[in-house]
Every structure is written in C-alpha cells, then in structure tokens.
C-alpha cells in the first residue's frame, strides 16, 4: 500500500482553489484568515494541506463547503467541476453539500447530534439527496456502516452517538460523508484527538477508501506523520498563505521552502544509524498574525535563516518548477542544514545515580460516583476504578523517565498521585529517600519546592485574571525566602532564562501566545530550583515548532540544574526524544518498563509493539506496520481477573490471558521488565 498506487488521476482538476482570500470582520478588527491560498485536487488523489494552528488551513476547507459564519469577505475562486463556489447561492450549495462534496470533521463527538440516533442521522442524508425508497435507504445505510468497518452494521443505527467510542463515532462521520458517493471529500483533522492506536485504524480506512472510491480527497492536518501516511501531494500553509506545493516525497525529502524544512526538523525522529538522537531544531520567533495587515514583504522573512534584503522589500509569489511550487525567492538555498547542524540530543551523561523519585507498588483507585446523584439515593456505586495498579519506578538524578500511554492509561493519574493532587490508595512514594505524604497539603514546603509540576494546557495553568508574574513570584516567596523586590527581580531573570522578554512580567496570560504561556509555566516550575519536575503532556497542546523550543528548554534546565524529570505524553516520538527510561502504561497497568532503547526495541510487550506500529512517522516511504488494535482502552474496575491487555491483544495465547495476572518478566535479568504471559524469547518482533 504505497502512496503512488493510484495513477488514474484525471488531468482535469476536480477542485481548483485560486488565490483564495478570506477575511472575517469581527468587533475586534479584521482577521485575514486566508491571505492567498491556491491548491488543486484531482480525482483519485489525496492532497494533504498542512500547517500549524492559525495558518488558515481549516478556513480553506470550510470555504470550499461554502460555510463561513459571521461577516466575511471571500476573494479569489474556488472552482469545482468548472463552477465557482464563491458567491454561489444557498440552494445550489445545499444540492452539492453532503452530495457531491462532503466533509469529515475534527472531534466526531461534537459533530453528531447527541439527541438523535445514528440511523436517522444517516438516513436523512440519503433521503435528501437520493431518490430512494424507504427500504433501499435502510439497506444503503447498513451497507455504508459496513463499508467503514463498523461492527454490527445492521444494529448500530439504533444507537446514540454517546454510546460509541471516539473511533466508532469518526467511522460514522466518515460513513455519513460517503453516503452519496461524493466526488470530493474534505477531511479536517479527522484523527486529531483520537488515541494513537485508533488513529492508525482510521488512517488505514482512509488509505483504503482512496482505492475504493473514485473521489478526490483534501486532507487537512497539522501532523506531518499523518500527512506522510495518507497524502499523494502536499500543500504547506504558513501565515494564511500557501507556501509550498509538491509531491509528498519532494516535500519530505527535498523541501524548497525554508519553513517546510524547519517544520520537518522540529519533529522528533528515531535515533539515526549511529544511534544518536539528533537535537531538535526550532524555528525562532512567532507566526505573522492573521490580525496584521501584510506589507510588501515575505511573511516568513523575520524567522527565516536565509532571508535576504529582497525578502523584506518584495512579497514573493508562487513559482513553479516541474510541478514543485514554492513561495520563496531563493528556493535553491534551502538545504537540510539551514536550521543548524546536526547535534546530539544532549551533550552530557549523568554519572550520579542517586535516586530522586521512587514509587513502590503505587496504587490509585477511584470510587466512581457515576449515576449516584444524591447521598441517600441513586444507583449502587460501581466497583472502584483501578486507575493505577502496582506501579514501581525510580528516577535518578538528572535523568528523565518517560511515561507513555493512551488516554485512560493511568499515566496522568500516576503524576497526580506523585505530586499529591490525587490520593493514592496504597504503596509508597519517596523524594530523595524521604516518604511523601499522600496529600500535597500535608507535605513540607521543602518537598513542595523540590517536586514541581508542569501541566498540559498552558492557557489553563495560568490564572487568566492575574499578571504572569503572579505564579512565579508566589513560588519564589513561598519556597525561596524571597522578599517582594527579590522575587520580582528573580521572576524577570527566570522569564529571560526561558527566552521571554522580562518586560512581559506585568502582562496577563491572554496577551501571550500558547508557546509563551507554556514558557511562563516552565519559569514558574523552575523557580527555586526544584530537584524534580513532573511534566504532564507539557508540550501536547503546542505546535511542532513551539514544541521543539519547549523540549529544548526542558533539556537545558536538566543539564544546568541536574533536574530529574518525569515526562508524560501520549506522543511516542516526543517521549522517545526526551527519555532515558520509558514506562509504557495501559489501563492503569505498567505493561513494560526499562531503559529507553531497550523498551523501544525488540523484545517488547505486544502493546508496546502495537503502539510503536501505530505512531505515524513523518516519512512517506516508511512501511506502515500492520499491527492494529480494535476497540478502545477499557476502564479497569475492581474484581477484574486476567491480563489487563487480553481484550485487545493481537498475540493472546490461551486461557491464561483471561484468568491469570501476567508475570513481570525481566529481559536478561536487566531492569527491562515486560508484563506478559508470552515467554521473553517469543516476544521478539514479528515483523
């Protein structure tokens, strides 16, 4: 299943977007959501539209559907089948939407009507656009549910959206889009927000669809790995403009726009042939905002390493060389090292193996109150949820433990128990050899100062009503014996250390970008030099270029202050990049743990294997691995027997998996541990 399997692409384009401009007029001023975007989709081809958040890629997608709410001005042309969709009246659009042009959205959970069964939601599309009898509609609906791989297609129509998992919901949304066999399918971040194993199965479905349906697909995503997996051609957007457009291999192997090259070098990649993980490069500065009016200049020039005088005096147009289009005056100067030369991830190795954080048989159980609304009445409470089961691990000085797993794996609960925000049920936690109290409120100031946490959502981790200095100076005063003046000065120094202008200190969080906010959160965590930091999905909400900046800041802090990290993420690539040790969690259980290299290579736990093969690599030539998991991560309750992974395991052996808890097997008597019934020597990779 390679990207070039389809060669029956028509010469006449199905969709042509020409110099599209979209401006929203809001009470706070004009937003140029799209300045100048051009792209082409042909029948039978998947065009990937890629860019960071706010670059206008979704606006392009919704412009094609003619769905732009608010006061809006659209310039340029959107030619579908030769007809211009811009300015087309509502009744003509209604006839096209859902019929000839259909869309799949991000966040399937909110895209389906919560008060309506799946069946009627499907049937109303068929009824509106096709001239079919009642019985035909019914059977067509079942056919469609079957074609997107939904289990029990004949009964699924009787269910409500909330009864389905996220992956199933997205399959329903895709089935809705396919209902009338559209010519053009627009997919806007269809796998964003799904777990990585679910994402892999949806991507498989999309790749499979490409061969089955005779449609053109515009696939919008911020994720380069996903784009590499599905796209034939790629269009790159930056600051509301399309900046590069080429065959997927050309984009990934020989990008001609410095931004594309930079974006690619921001993505964490596996170690190279020499076993060295290259340090991430990052793009300095921030995106040219959509609120600003562009002058006669290249919008990327302020961040560009190869900018010339010409770039700030003239605005480059798209130029075409052998079908590789690029908006740059100097595409020939773009090489792999314009963003800096290859350096190893970090240039130190810790010798000190003093244990900083230790957890022994850590357990967290939630007494769920679901359905029990009142004190005296309501349903019987269900058995407690086993959020974390018997987790034991150590983090030594200036090393990083990465915890990876999907949502519901218990990785965040582990961190919250460590920090004292969630109550552990049993087990012990030690910091520098001293017992940690269960509740953060009962710990000493020193312990609180030594163990800090960085949260996922930078917007939520700073109080929106207080200046950004607040969190930093409070930490300094409480932990560092600083007086007002001292804390103020130190806070400025900390801001500078994380690469922020110290004059930002009086600003409120909404005046900062997401990346800047996360730097503030880091500054506040670094205050008073903690011994260890827990980072819970600390870069997950950030764009790749910003993510790289933050990851490098973390590594620098580790190097300078010998800090230990527990780094939690669902993104295997990021965990692989930062971690010395890795712990893979599934449904509250530790499936596998040990040194990073050992965990990521054979032999591995079947779940680790599935996780590794699900993670999309930003390389169009990567052979997609075939191990796929059905279903979703279950919620583990008390009185559960057998192996935690048995339900979804592709290598389940026999009755033992359902009845007996898997043993912790040590690989070659090292600290690499795998919890599985299958003997170690049979756990070597099958592929």
């Amino acid at each position, binding site marked *: 299943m390679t990207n070039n399997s389809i060669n029956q692409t028509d010469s006449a384009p199905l969709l042509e977007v020409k110099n599209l401009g979209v401006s929203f007029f809001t009470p706070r001023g004009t937003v140029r959501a799209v300045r100048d975007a051009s792209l082409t989709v042909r029948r039978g081809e998947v065009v990937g539209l890629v860019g960071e958040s706010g670059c206008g890629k979704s606006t392009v997608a919704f412009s094609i*559907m003619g*769905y732009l*709410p608010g006061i809006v001005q659209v310039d340029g042309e959107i030619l579908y089948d030769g007809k211009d969709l811009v300015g087309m009246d*509502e009744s003509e*659009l*209604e*006839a*096209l*939407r*859902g*019929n000839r042009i*259909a*869309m799949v*959205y991000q*966040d399937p959970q*909110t*895209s*389906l*009507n*919560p*008060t*309506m*069964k799946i069946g009627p939601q499907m049937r*109303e*599309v068929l009824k*509106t*656009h096709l001239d079919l009898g009642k019985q035909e509609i019914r059977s067509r609906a079942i056919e469609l549910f079957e074609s997107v791989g939904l289990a029990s297609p004949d009964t699924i129509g009787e269910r*409500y959206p*909330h*009864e389905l998992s996220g992956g199933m919901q997205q399959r329903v*949304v895709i089935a*809705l889009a396919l209902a009338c066999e559209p010519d053009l399918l627009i997919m806007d971040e269809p796998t964003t927000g799904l777990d990585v194993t679910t994402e892999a199965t949806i991507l498989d479905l999309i790749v499979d669809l490409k061969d089955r349906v005779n449609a053109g697909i515009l696939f919008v995503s911020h994720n380069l790995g996903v784009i590499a997996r599905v796209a034939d051609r790629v269009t790159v957007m930056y600051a509301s403009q399309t900046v590069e457009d080429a065959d997927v291999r050309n984009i990934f192997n020989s990008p001609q726009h410095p931004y594309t090259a930079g974006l690619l070098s921001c993505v964490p990649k596996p170690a190279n042939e020499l076993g060295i993980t290259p340090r991430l490069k990052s793009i300095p500065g921030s995106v040219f905002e959509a609120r600003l009016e562009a002058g006669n200049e290249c919008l990327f020039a302020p961040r560009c390493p190869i900018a010339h005088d010409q770039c700030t005096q003239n605005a480059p147009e798209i130029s075409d060389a052998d079908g590789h289009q690029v908006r740059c005056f100097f595409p020939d100067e773009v090489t792999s090292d314009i963003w800096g030369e290859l350096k190893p991830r970090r240039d130190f190795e810790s010798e000190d193996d003093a244990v900083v954080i230790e957890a022994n048989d850590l357990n967290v159980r939630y007494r769920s109150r679901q*359905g029990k*609304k*009142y004190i*005296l*009445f*309501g*349903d019987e409470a269900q058995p407690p949820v086993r959020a974390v089961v018997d987790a034991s691990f150590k983090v030594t000085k200036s090393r990083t433990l990465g915890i990876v797993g999907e949502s519901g794996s218990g990785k965040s609960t582990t961190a919250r128990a460590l920090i004292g925000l969630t109550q552990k049920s049993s087990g012990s936690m030690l910091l520098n050899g001293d017992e940690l109290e269960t509740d953060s409120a009962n710990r000493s100031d020193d312990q609180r100062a030594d163990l800090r946490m960085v949260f996922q959502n930078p917007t939520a981790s700073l109080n929106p009503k207080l200046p950004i200095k607040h969190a930093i100076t409070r930490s300094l005063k409480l932990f560092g014996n600083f007086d007002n003046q001292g804390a103020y000065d130190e806070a400025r120094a900390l801001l500078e250390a994380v690469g922020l202008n110290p004059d930002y200190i009086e600003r409120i969080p909404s005046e900062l970008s997401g990346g800047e906010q996360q730097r503030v959160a880091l500054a506040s965590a670094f205050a008073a030099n903690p011994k260890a930091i827990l980072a819970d999905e600390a870069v997950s909400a950030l764009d790749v270029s910003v993510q790289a900046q933050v990851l490098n800041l973390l590594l620098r802090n580790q190097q300078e202050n010998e800090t230990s990290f527990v780094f939690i993420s669902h993104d295997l690539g990021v965990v692989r990049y930062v971690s010395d040790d890795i712990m893979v969690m599934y449904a509250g259980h530790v499936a596998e743990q040990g040194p990073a290299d050992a965990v990521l290579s054979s032999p591995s736990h079947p779940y680790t294997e599935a996780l590794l093969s699900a993670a999309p690599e930003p390389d169009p030539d990567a052979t997609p691995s075939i191990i796929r998991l059905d279903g979703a991560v279950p919620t583990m309750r008390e009185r559960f027997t057998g192996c935690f992974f048995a339900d979804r395991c592709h290598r389940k052996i026999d009755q033992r998996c359902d009845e007996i808890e898997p043993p912790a097997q040590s690989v070659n008597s090292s600290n690499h541990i795998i919890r599985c019934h299958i003997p170690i020597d049979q756990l070597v990779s099958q592929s």
Partner: protein
Amino acid sequence: MLRFLLVRFSLIFITLAVVSLAIFGVTEVLPGDVAEAILGKSRTPGALETLREQMGLDRPAWQRYVEWIFGVLQGDLGNSLVQDRPVTEILGSRLQNSLVLAVTAFLISVPSAILVGVWAGVRQGSNADHTVSVISLVAISLPEFVTGFILIVIFSSTLGWLPSSSLVMPGTSPLARPVILIMPIATMTAVLFGYVMRMTRANVIEALNTNYVRTAILKGLPRWQVIWRHAVPNAMLPTIAVISINVGWMLGGLIIVESVFAYPGLGLSLINAVNRRDLPMLQAISLLIAATYAISNLLADLAYAWLNPRIRISS
C-alpha cells in the same frame, strides 16, 4: 425509570418536609406567637392567656408541629381562624379558580414563547429579532401589578371593553364568565412568555453554533430540517429547566394578579390570611404552593429525561 421516579418522589417528600418545617418555624417558633399576632397591638395579658390556652399554644412547639403534620397527612389542614371553617373547605374552590388562571396562562404562553423564541433565534441580529428581544425584556421587567394596571387603563377605563375587576360569585365557576379571565391571563402570560421566549432564543442561537448543526448544514439538509430536527430539540433541554423554574415564579405572580383583579383564588386568600393573621390558612396555602412547585419540577425532570437520551439510558 421506576427507580428514577422513586428517587424523585422521595426527594419531593424531603423537600416538603423541610418546607413544612420552615413554614411552621416562620409562623410559630419566631418570638411572639399566633395569639399575639391575632390580638395585635390591642392585646391585654388576660385575653392573650385565654387565647393561648384555647389554641393549645402553651404546649411545646415540636408537639404542635407533629400534630399539624399528622393533620396535614390526613388531609386536615386545620380550621381558619377568621371564618372558623375547615381550611380545605374554603380553599377547594379557590384552588380551582387559581388553576384555571395558571393553567390557561401556561398553555398560552409556553408554546407561543417557544415558537417566537425559535423564530427570533434563527434570525439573530435582524430587526425582527431586536424588536422581539426588546419587547420580551420589557415584559419580564414590568411587575405584574404594572402590567395589569396598564391593561386596565387601556381596556377598561379607556375602551371600556373589559371589566376592571374579575369578581366571581361564590359557588360559580370563573369559566361561566370567561371575559373576566382575559386580563388576568394576559398579565400572567406576559412575564412567562418573556422568560421562556428569551431562554428559547438564547438556546437556539447556541445550538445553531454547535458542530452537529454545522454537520447538518454541510450534509446539505434543507434549512427547516436543520432547525427543527437538529437545533430545536437540543435547545429545548435547558429551556425546560426555565419553564419549571417559572412555574414557581408564576405562583408568586398569581398572588399579585389575583390581588390586582380581585380574582378569588389562592393568592387572594393568602393576602386576606396575611392581613387578618389567619395562620392555619397561611400554612395551608404555603404548603400547597410549595407542593405545586415541587411537582412541576418533577414533571420538568421527566420531560428532560424524555428528551435527553443520555439520562434516559442511564436511568
């Protein structure tokens, strides 16, 4: 479902128990007692003593409370101090009259408010929407006695079309002369209409901005179908809560409206009871109003559960 009902009914029971305690507390346990209240400022110590004994007020409060509650449970709400007849006898026809008023107002205002709310919500920002919004804001801002007064000035004093007071002969039904009901119903309708319409409008606007409505639009469904099958059912969920809360509000409004139009319902009885310090009467009416409110809340919850598949499945 049965379980859900059971839970809700026991909750109503608890609420009413709390309310009954509060009513009893306000009227009995507060410093001073019924006897003082009846005799007012013109009391003499001797008369006070006699009346207290007569009413059994010399016994502890909790005993009297238990007696009262047991009476209530057996349908005995005591005797009116003023009319010296059983309270239930007096209130029977009064309750009927009030129900005629309240139910008619409810049946007129709620459906029309929902229709107008949807109509305005779909046209958000248009002149029609602004007009309806302003009218409804004024409707909820005017106290019932002002609305009623304005109606009287227009339709009674000026045009002379309608009688300015809505007297009902004892023993007859207000429905015998429906013309007297027009202004009281119109007054009650105004406020209720305003609230329900505003809430419907806000919820429709919110629903129209959801992703599932966007999905419906991008499926190419005709506009009416997007609105009535996707936006409105979801918008009705929070609206129901407003309607149920408004029933409580309406019961308060009833007191004023009946007083404005001298309409012989529960509200007027309450005012009379207050003015004459007829405490058994007061307690009975208060309890009745609280019970009505609790039951209407239950009905709203049932409607909510019926519309919301999430609750329906889980209960």
